[in-house]
């Protein structure tokens, strides 16, 4: 996984052969190409680190649909990162169940320990902290999602250890 730590240049981006194959696989699943926009945007996010305008244009070109259609979708959904994120995108649930089990403390604790507020990226580009809505882990809060992985029943110490142990 190659996660970008700086903004994309203005010029066009190019998908790897593997990503192109993956998008082809998604396109084949739907009656029209436009329907594959969501999975193709995920491929782009993984491939380029975040969904920049250049990445949207690349998706549009790959799917052979207008750029505006891709932009509509990408800006509507919050889980496509429209700004660069760190190597580890730490998403902390701030919704009610997690809040009752101490999400507030967790968010504050991590903020202080990493020296960044939610929405910011650490200077070394390793972590981006984000407070998100329900992660659908209400029975086992507070919960945290680091890139694609879930961590549950957290305390500040446990969470910090998980983050520091990451490669």
């Amino acid at each position: 996984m190659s996660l970008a730590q700086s903004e994309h240049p203005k010029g066009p981006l190019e998908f790897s052969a593997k990503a192109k194959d993956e998008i082809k696989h998604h396109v084949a699943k739907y009656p029209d190409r436009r329907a594959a926009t969501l999975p193709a945007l995920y491929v782009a996010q993984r491939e380029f680190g975040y969904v920049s305008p250049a990445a949207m244009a690349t998706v549009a070109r790959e799917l052979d649909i207008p750029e505006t259609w891709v932009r509509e979708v990408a800006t509507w959904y919050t889980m496509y990162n429209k700004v660069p994120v760190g190597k580890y995108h730490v998403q902390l649930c701030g919704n009610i169940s997690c809040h009752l089990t101490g999400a507030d403390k967790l968010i504050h604790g991590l903020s202080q320990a990493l020296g960044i507020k939610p929405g910011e990226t650490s200077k070394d580009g390793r972590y981006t902290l984000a407070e998100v809505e329900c992660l659908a882990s209400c029975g086992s809060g507070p919960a945290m999602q680091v890139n694609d992985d879930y961590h549950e029943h957290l305390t500040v110490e446990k969470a910090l250890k998980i983050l520091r142990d990451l490669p």
Partner: protein
Amino acid sequence: MPTLKIDGVEITVPPGTNLVEAAKVAGKDIPIFCYHSHLSIAANCRMCLVHGSQNGRPWPKAMPACQTLVADNMEIDTCSEKTQAVRKGVLEFILINHPLDCPVCDKSGECMLQDNFFEHSNRPSRFHEYKEQKLKTYDIGPQIIYDGERCINCTRCVRFMDEIALDNQLAQINRGDRSVIACAEGKQLDHPYAMNTVDLCPVGALLGKDFRFQKRAWFLQHTDSVCPGCARGCNVVIDSARLENEVYRIKPRDNAAVNGPWMCDDGRWTYHQARERRLTQATVRQDGEHKAVAVDVALRQAATLVRLHLGKPTLAVAVSPHLTSEDLYLAASLQKQLFRASTYAVTGHAPWKGDNFLKVSDRNPNRRGAAAIHDALGLKDVLDGNALLTAVESGKVKALVLIGTELPSADFDRLKAAFSKLDALVVLASEKDAAAQLADVAIPVAAFTEMEGLWVNAFGRVQRVRACVPPKGDAQPAWKALRGLARQLDVNVRQADHRDLVVDLAREVPLFNNLTHESVGAFGVARGAETSAPRKVGEGKLPEDFTLPA
């Protein structure tokens, strides 16, 4: 055909009619924002929510009238308190973040949000929170300014670009109260039909730069006329200010047989030629200099110059296909009885590239009318503009009377070289163009915003052009100037006024048989079997056998 009741009025309409259209049949008005009869249904503004019942069972909740199709035994109420309460709620939501900058908004006075609010809500807001701040005066395209705060996100403009312009330049980006209309990153709304989005915008979110801050809507009077931009002759409304007699704007007027509710951007700018660079005074050249004179003096001078050449091979007379058919008829009959010029030509702008929607390649609105008149009056060997210029350049022609100055070439140097071979150049011009500047005698005539008459479009449809402002300065309708010239040449024109001309035109030219201005009316009369209707909505998008899945 389904029969239903709208506010107790029983109507029968074709199946597939939506309730907004059905209500119109019943004489009722359902307020709308996002619905447009020529666009797909979005049902996102919720303004048209109505309560109703089916087979006596009330609907569980209000339904959007634009998206609900008629059915038997349906009963709709469009004005009960229950429906009105829904509308009040919808308007309150729409207005949460609306900036209410009506005093500086150009849409004010013709704004659907203002109208619907006054009619259906008219109560103060209960929201005291700060309003969401969004894109303001954003330069969305070369002709258009976008204001995200005024925007109610009805997506009419987006649907127009997708479905009519067939160029997906616009998108609704972000979500919730942050939604705005935008193009793809780094792109602009740049399309030959883009200004239609400004007409479609129910509020002042998309505004044309051309009209922005020019005139408040309530000072404008509206005249039904025809666009002079090309030979399609799109039906338009010309908006002019009553007090200062200036034209401010041209908007399309819905005529399914010609242009639908659309027109191209180039057509909208044609009013500039009737406003700016106008020839408002007659000029006579003396010792190489133009001297402004009274029209009578200029006509006398013109007569002196032309008289020597009457009936001789040295005289050429050229008419412009931008003149009305009445003007052209008088010019043609004068050619027969007075000028007897051996060179008679129909000039006109050089063609442009038409497109597959509205623009046709001929840029002259009445070439078909000119041809019909010349055929009927038996004028032979009528040249076109290029042949005329060649004849002038060859030096064969010594005196030229240009009635209307739309020439195939606007190249000043070429025209100067050509016209320098003439002994006399008399022009009837509305603009201070090359021909008017090079003329020995230039007589001001009315522009298309100032003349009454008939044009025939490229498909043989007779349409009525109407004067919305009086002619500028000393200008007069071309037929009057021609009549004056004839009088100076000792020929009395039989027709006393414009009405007489129309009567004679209708009698002598088959294309105009039995027509009067009144019978042509606002929407024109088709002569012949040709259809000029533009392509249908969504044509070329779905296969013809497409049906919605059951």
